[in-house]
């Protein structure tokens, strides 16, 4: 049996690519090292009756075009938009978030009257940047050094986007793409907690602090998603993030594709300079006319391809690709909901994202620990309780709490993480929550602690970087993952890459997987009738 395509890794991008290829009539097989599927969009029951979102924990970026093309609602996917959110402040108060414009303004006004009236202009500017970048998500980045007609026309399109801007907007754009989120927010807001909340999306998944240049763009990466057409809205996948990959798998199987879980790829098989399949850890071989790797670029080329098959310069660039781990995760089964002393009773804020870092300075201090090779003593946490709106994940009255934690370095002072390090990391997080919700610790039934060590080992993310490579300007567009290799192809014929290491990057977006499938089908001159045009930005 020779497949048309063997996809390595059943993460969301691998499955998205597989679905599109299968719908175009290709024989597709996805191989997955774990006994379960999902990659970083995964839900497992690690405590009886509790479904976790073990890695990624919120949805917004997943492209609606993909959900439609692959009929994911039909295959069971539901995204529940959420509201609320709060930053707990050192002084015992909090800054809450509201979807209602007036409520949000009044909440800001509790802390700063000026900031309350600054939000509209800020939102306009962020939306302007989003509108610029969104049309690029479902397009293959042009190769600026190529003279192929398609590259030239894509470059021209990019140029038109750029030159369609006024002079002032162009200045703003370039500044925005390169400046720190701290500096960007200083141009709008005065209150430290208002800024700290807005900065959250800029540091998540990034081994940089809010004062590091380049972090403003990362904000955009999180702000440009939508739930059911509500730009910037976020939601939970009902039943946990694994529901996304479960729906993808069902869609794939309905289109005739296969998934083989439980055996990882040992080696990508290369004959006469062409990828011809994979050798699995158990010695089995799966043969295909092409191999599509959903693994990150380092894992793909530095661990599963012989170095002598690759050009030296390419290997050098892949080695230099920044994929530094910056985060960890705590998944907690709770006997009851925590009580945060700052919040009023029945507060809607607990339905959203909660944080304990009330200033940019505090966030930067947490990053200082990372630089020194430590997990943060006073970490930044993006804490959610999805069971506040999705009761399907736990028994009635119980809760699942997801804590995304920064910062956690890939190594502790240059050494591998030990179990003691992991326990210390978990303690810092739990102590922080306990401080704002006394008694919380007593309600814990089970905790899954994932440091970069676990993320790399279990999920396969090099250094535990959740985006398969940092989203800084030097690693975007035609430079992602490495210059000259941004069109989902590799120096080895018939070896493709489709993970978040490629344009447009990480998050449960699906765009890299779809774009890779699009390139493969183009290469085959196969019809792409099941791939709808990216929605226009009017």
């Amino acid at each position, binding site marked *: 049996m020779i497949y048309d395509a063997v996809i390595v890794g059943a993460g969301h991008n691998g499955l998205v690519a597989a679905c599109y290829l299968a719908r175009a009539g290709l024989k597709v097989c996805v191989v997955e090292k774990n006994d379960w599927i999902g990659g970083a969009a995964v839900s497992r029951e690690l405590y009886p009756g509790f479904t976790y979102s073990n890695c990624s924990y919120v949805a917004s970026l997943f492209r609606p075009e993909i959900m439609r093309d692959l009929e994911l609602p039909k295959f069971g996917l539901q995204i529940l938009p959420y509201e609320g959110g709060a930053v707990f402040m050192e002084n015992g108060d909090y800054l809450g978030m509201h979807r209602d414009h007036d409520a949000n303004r009044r909440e800001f006004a509790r802390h700063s009257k000026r900031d309350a009236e600054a939000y*509209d202009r800020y939102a306009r500017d962020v939306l302007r940047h989003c509108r610029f970048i969104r049309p690029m998500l479902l397009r293959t980045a042009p190769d600026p050094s190529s003279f192929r007609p398609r590259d030239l026309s894509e470059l021209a399109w990019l140029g038109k986007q750029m030159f369609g801007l006024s002079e*002032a907007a162009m200045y703003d754009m370039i500044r925005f793409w390169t400046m720190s989120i701290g500096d960007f927010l200083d141009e709008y807001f005065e209150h430290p907690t208002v800024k700290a909340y807005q900065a959250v999306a800029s540091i998540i998944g990034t081994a940089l602090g809010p004062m590091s240049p380049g972090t403003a763009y990362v904000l955009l990466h999180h702000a440009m998603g939508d739930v059911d057409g509500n730009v910037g809205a976020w939601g939970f996948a009902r039943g946990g993030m694994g529901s996304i990959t479960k729906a993808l798998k069902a869609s794939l199987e309905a289109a005739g594709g296969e998934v083989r879980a439980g055996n990882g790829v040992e080696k990508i098989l290369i004959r006469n300079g062409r990828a011809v399949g994979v050798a699995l850890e158990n010695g089995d071989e799966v043969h295909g006319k092409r191999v599509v790797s959903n693994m990150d670029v380092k894992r793909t080329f530095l661990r599963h391809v012989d170095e002598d098959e690759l050009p030296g310069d390419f290997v050098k660039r892949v080695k230099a690709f920044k994929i530094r781990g910056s985060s960890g995760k705590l998944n907690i089964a709770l006997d009851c909901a925590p009580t945060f002393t700052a919040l009023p009773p029945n507060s809607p804020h607990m339905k959203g994202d909660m944080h304990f870092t009330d200033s940019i300075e505090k966030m930067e201090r947490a990053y200082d620990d990372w630089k020194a090779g430590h997990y943060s003593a006073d970490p930044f946490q993006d804490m959610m309780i999805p069971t506040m709106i999705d009761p399907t994940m736990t028994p009635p009255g119980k809760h699942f709490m997801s804590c995304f934690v920064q910062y956690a370095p890939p190594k502790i002072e240059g050494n591998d993480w030990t179990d003691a390090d992991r326990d210390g990391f978990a303690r810092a997080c739990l102590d922080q929550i306990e401080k704002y919700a006394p008694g919380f610790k007593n309600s814990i039934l089970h905790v899954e602690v994932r440091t970069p060590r676990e993320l790399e080992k279990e999920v396969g993310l090099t250094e535990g970087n959740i985006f398969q490579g940092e989203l800084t300007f030097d690693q975007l567009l035609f430079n992602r993952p490495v210059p000259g290799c941004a069109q989902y192809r590799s120096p080895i014929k018939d070896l493709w890459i489709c993970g978040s290491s490629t344009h447009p990057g990480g998050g449960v977006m699906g765009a890299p997987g779809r774009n890779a499938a699009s390139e493969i089908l183009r290469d085959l001159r196969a019809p792409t009738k099941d791939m709808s045009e990216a929605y226009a930005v009017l």
Partner: protein
Amino acid sequence: MNVMKTTDPRLHYLTPLKQTPFHPRTAAENRLNDWGPWAGYTTALSFGDTAMEHSAIRNTASVYDLCPMVKYRVTGPDAAAYLDRLTVRNASKLSVGGVHYTIWCDDAGKVIDDGTLFRLGPTDYRICCQERHLPWLLDSAIGYEVAIVEETEDVAALSLQGPCTYSVLKAAGFDVADLKPFRMRTFPFDGGEVMISRTGFTGDLGYELWTTPAHAIALWDHLFAAGAPWGIRPIGTHALDIARIEAGFIITNLDFIPVDQAVREDRARSPFELGLEWMVDFDKGHFTGRRALLKEKVNKSSKWALVGLDIDGNVSVEGSIIYQNGKTEVGTVTAACWSPSAKRNIALAQVRRPYHESGNLFVEVYALRELQYAKLMLPARVCERPFFAPPRRRTTPPAPF
């Protein structure tokens, strides 16, 4: 829970739309519970019959709750100089007790908002406007000795409009016989004060009454008692909207997009493009946007024109696309109605220059009648605003009706 609502400032989100100080009265009068949000307040869209309410504006006396209007107080020795710098009109020339309609622009000469400026004292002004601008106002104050305070919730205001309003005020004990348009005067009332300005948004004889929330209900009751013989009635936003279109007045975010909210850069408009160039005072010294506006004036580089349209027939043309020769798209209707006062089919529109002078314009209308559309291409002519301007709006003293 009710107790907590009033005492705990954190619980504002339970009532995201606030009630104005007049709510106990407007709620009692709102027969159909026809409410809409305006700047964070619950406001009456109608009290039950928009046509009758509009008739009150033009034939008797109408009362509109103005409280949601955003208000800023500007005080200090440099208040006049600051407002000269901020706005395009000459605020120093505005005498104490005077009011003028004004706009302010960004550095590129694009309009941020319009509003009315009240000179309450030599160093004391109030700005009333549609949108919120605290950061812009504070940043513009750098180098000026002024204090800027947002005071929306500290003021309760009613707009009393219609030909009988002078008589109503007289019956209420407020002598405004010699109060000219755009002037104001303060009267003692209910142990406090009420300031009455001869201003409004209807293009008719009318006044606006300003007090503090503590005296709001007393003011309402006093006006309605005094105005009963003239058929005074509360009106909602729908009726006011017809009157303001007849008067040719524009509203921020309906007839133009304020530059600081325009996501699409090309939506921003200059005063020239909104028909407001008459108020730009290039001789008063520097003001924000002056350089860009002077350049636009010299180069005649304005791209748009805001015009009044007179349209054939009696089918109202809200939101329609405007064509020249029936095929070239040249603009959009921003507000429209059949005018009961002028007996004309009227509209405000943004038209791309030079088509505002080209003639031969048509308005495309899809008129829904019992689930089927009548597709109409109606001839339209650019015409003078206001569409309806009774002399009584300016006569001083006003004639008794």
